[in-house]
């Protein structure tokens, strides 16, 4: 780790004013510290924003989750558990209790890929060192993307929480450098790699995430988060699926399907969702939805297994919506 300056601020405004271009904000630090230890992130200053909003506020239109709400808090909050339980379910599938106690809601969105090539400064990686090449494209890409990837980057976004948030049509509230507030739809927050994979998301430079808003939704009865991984705790997803159904007399009024471990951003399976709308909630329709999603993938040499796994995971997750 390199020496750096450290400033703690009490307001968003103060944070934005104090942060220099060579600095970084720090919240829970669960990813940033690793990145600094490995010299992947080398900020010259850290601006501690742990004092910004950590409250969960019910709104008429939904719920507002302060950026500093710890992940573990979200899994215990009554408002979340009764109205947005998919969020809690997703969080509990990730990390460890110790990490969830530290990790913040805003920071969760900004965690970087776990692609092994990104973490080894001696190997080329376009995300870490633009223009150096993608080592995973023809290297070990068992964990890599099966949809939305480019020749420049096949990394996947590692979050579980974000999969639930994208499924629930959340939005991200940010304050920009000019102190103006802006709302970014969650589905537009993260980016596909294209030829600029070093940019994980569309958060403007020096902006701070202040809250996540999740709109009121009917998905608190039939929902599931299924995470497939190499071990049952403390492992990143091979494939994960957030599924939620709005049912009336076993007919699907609305459906949400999103996946982690498959793309550079939390991925929505819109075509599969559209197929399900108006259909009966049964195995055949779930299988067809899974088939539609799987059809849109393009696996790499080392991760063809993710396609049948995704298909199976969607079927099981949708089925679990009926029993959850």
């Amino acid at each position, binding site marked *: *780790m*390199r*020496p750096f300056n450290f400033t703690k601020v009490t307001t968003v405004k103060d944070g934005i004013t104090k942060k220099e271009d060579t600095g970084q904000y720090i919240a829970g630090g669960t990813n940033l510290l*690793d990145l600094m230890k490995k*010299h992947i992130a080398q900020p010259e200053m850290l601006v501690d924003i742990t004092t910004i909003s950590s409250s969960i506020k019910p709104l008429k239109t939904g719920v507002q989750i302060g950026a500093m709400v710890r992940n573990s808090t979200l899994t215990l909050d009554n408002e979340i558990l009764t109205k947005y339980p998919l969020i809690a379910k997703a969080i509990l599938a990730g990390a460890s209790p110790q990490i969830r106690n530290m990790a913040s809601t805003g920071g969760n969105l900004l965690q970087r890929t*776990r692609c*092994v*090539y990104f*973490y*080894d400064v*001696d*190997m080329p990686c376009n995300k870490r060192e633009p223009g150096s090449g993608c*080592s995973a494209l*023809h*290297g*070990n890409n*068992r964990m890599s993307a099966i949809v939305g990837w480019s020749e420049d980057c096949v990394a996947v976004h590692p979050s579980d929480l974000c999969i639930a948030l994208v499924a629930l049509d959340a939005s991200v509230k940010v304050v920009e450098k000019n102190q103006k507030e802006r709302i970014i739809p969650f589905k537009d927050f993260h980016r596909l790699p294209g030829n600029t994979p070093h940019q994980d998301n569309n958060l403007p430079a020096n902006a701070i995430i202040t809250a996540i808003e999740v709109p009121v939704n009917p998905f608190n009865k039939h929902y599931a988060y*299924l995470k*497939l991984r*190499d*071990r*049952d*705790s*403390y*492992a*990143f997803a*091979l494939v994960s699926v957030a599924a939620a159904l709005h049912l009336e007399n076993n007919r699907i009024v609305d459906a949400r399907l999103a996946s982690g471990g498959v793309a550079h951003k939390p991925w929505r399976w819109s075509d599969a969702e559209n197929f399900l709308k108006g259909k009966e909630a049964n195995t055949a329709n779930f299988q067809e939805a899974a088939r539609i999603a799987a059809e849109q993938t393009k696996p790499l040499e080392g*991760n*063809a*297994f*993710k396609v*049948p*796994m995704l*298909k*199976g*995971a969607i*079927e*099981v997750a949708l089925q679990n919506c009926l029993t959850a």
Partner: protein
Amino acid sequence: MEFFDNELSTLMPAEGRVEAIAKVTGKGKYAAEYTVPGVCYAVLVTSSIPAGTIKAIQVDKAKRATGVIDILYHQNKPVVPGFADETKIRESRVGLPVFYTDKIYFKGQPIALVVAESLEEATYAASLITADYTAEVFNVDFVKTHPSIPLKAAGKERGTVDEWSNAIHIVEAEYTIKEEVHNPMEMHATIAEWVGDNKVKLYEKTQGVNSVQRVISGLFSIPRENVEVISEFVGGGFGSGLRVWSNTLMAVMASLQVKRPVKLMLTRPQMFSLVGYRPESWQKIKLGADSSGKFSGMIHQAKHTTSVFENFNENITRIARLVYDFKNLKTESAIVPLNLGTPTWMRGPGDCTGDFAIESAIDELSYKLNEDPIALRLKNIALKNDPESGKPWSTHFIDECLEQGATKINWKNRKQTPGQVTEGDWQIGYGMAIGMWTSGRTQASASIVLDKSGTIIVRTAMTDIGTGTGTAMQNLAHESLGMPKNKIKVELGNSNLPPAPSQGGSTGLASLGGAVMDAATLLKQKLATYAAAINAQYKDAAAADILLSENGISYKQANAQFISYADLWKKVDEPTIEAEATSAPGEERQQFAFCSSAAHFCIVRVHSKTGKVKVDRMVCVADGGKIINEKPAANQVSGAAVGGIGMALMEEQQADVKFGSLLGNDLAGYHFAVNADAPIIEVSFIDKPDPNINQMGSKGLGEVGIIGCAAAIANAIYNATGKRLRNLPITPDKVLLG
């Protein structure tokens, strides 16, 4: 064991380990935790390429950084007599001649060591060091390379291959296992302090203080007794602490250079390349049987990785020669040098790997024969004599292990045809396999000290790597002397104490226990001599006649002819009475062969749509001779079985063939089994003493808990799904595509 088997059990757990309170309160010190006045901190810089030569190394920036005391590298290091020339380096057998070469053999090899006033300063300065290399061609690709490395005979061929080439049933298949890294909770660490011109003291993470003493005294040409090695608490060994690795050597060198105590602890990423690993392997089995299910012969071939600078052979085919009665047996092996660190022993080394292939092949044969896999094994196990030496087994209860395990897991519910039992999308199957290990014993010493207050201390240099050695020493002393356990203290893991071998290969307690018992006998004889001066009854007392209690000693029965310690000490000039004994294997090794064994059973469920495998139950019945203390013994076996689940289902360390780097070096990406992956492991013991192995009748246990686990799980997956998966780890992708 009720306490482990049933989470709702209301039984009180058996009493804890002697070191339990020290461990949970943090009073027990691991190597890096000792406070040494004047200590400075060392941080390692490692190579960024996998092969080549260091052209130049830039240390100036680092030298100027705050707090930096010195930087060691190949052009700035103290004299190590043992590294004086190429021949001496080879003879030293320490592996990597760290800082005595400019050659790079693997990525992550130490190239410089920064010594600074604080850990933070050393860490920062280390990041400022850069090196220029002349890169050379490297190879980390085992899969592509091993076919070109020829096999050589591994042991004498029994019978001939021709004799069974027409066997009615043949199973022929290849098996692979990926590299598994060592990552005990405690990272390898050393604090080295030169306390005189040729005297050094080490706080060290090791499984054997005397072994470290031997290596360091040899390398630095100083008398062995001038090297003091302390390793009182060890946070897991598993074989990683059986060698002296570069961290020890570098700390000793640095301390010599800066003339201050130096602490060096490897970082977690460094643990992945600097303290060995279970090598990646390939095996081929050809197994034949006649129509009655009697094995007619086997060919077992195996290859595994080693480093380019050292030959390590873990002898994968050894177990082929141990378990079954093969009249015809051919075993061949080869090692494949790659640009990686040197592999080393890891729990059940060699046998664990070989067992997976053999026990998988036997399972496959059982389906061909349509015969129960337990019955097939019983028909072929060499139960009476060691098939290699021909000597009779002193004791061998694998048949009883099988019988008890089968009952416990309700083996009768298993379906002989695979894929018969489903629960929704889950397929359920039963599997089993056996494991064996040669029960070794080596010379070990222990002493027992009694002081005036009636406190006993039992001492040995042997470490306790978490196996319960200290607790067993207390138990044995208690049983031999009669003294209550709370008056018996244990001191171990220090080279100044009576010498003992390294704790490894399931030999620890089997070697040491006899010495503790002999020391107890000697102590009682000494006490009898003093007591005779007070009470003539003690004059001809045998050791067995003497009993110790908190208040004093008595003759033949409690409180009879009682003499208090205060009275006794009137006849004793010394502050303590001490007895030391050494025990070693003897004639019995000429007459008998010795083995430990275990039968592993499991029930798994396999998800047909996602490839997920869950181990629902795991039963292990082990023969380790007489069990001294069931709680740590069961704890050890259940830990080994969880290791087996990791080996079967998730552990794999890969290297990038294009860049020569390990792919990932943290515990988030390297998956070993955690609680969520393991059921409560149901452990039980045969618990019959072996009358010939040592005074207690105890055989080693550490290895057999894992040997056989992986095959049992793979065999259960076959029983559940009909998919025969021969490549470990069996991750969900392999199940889906299998």
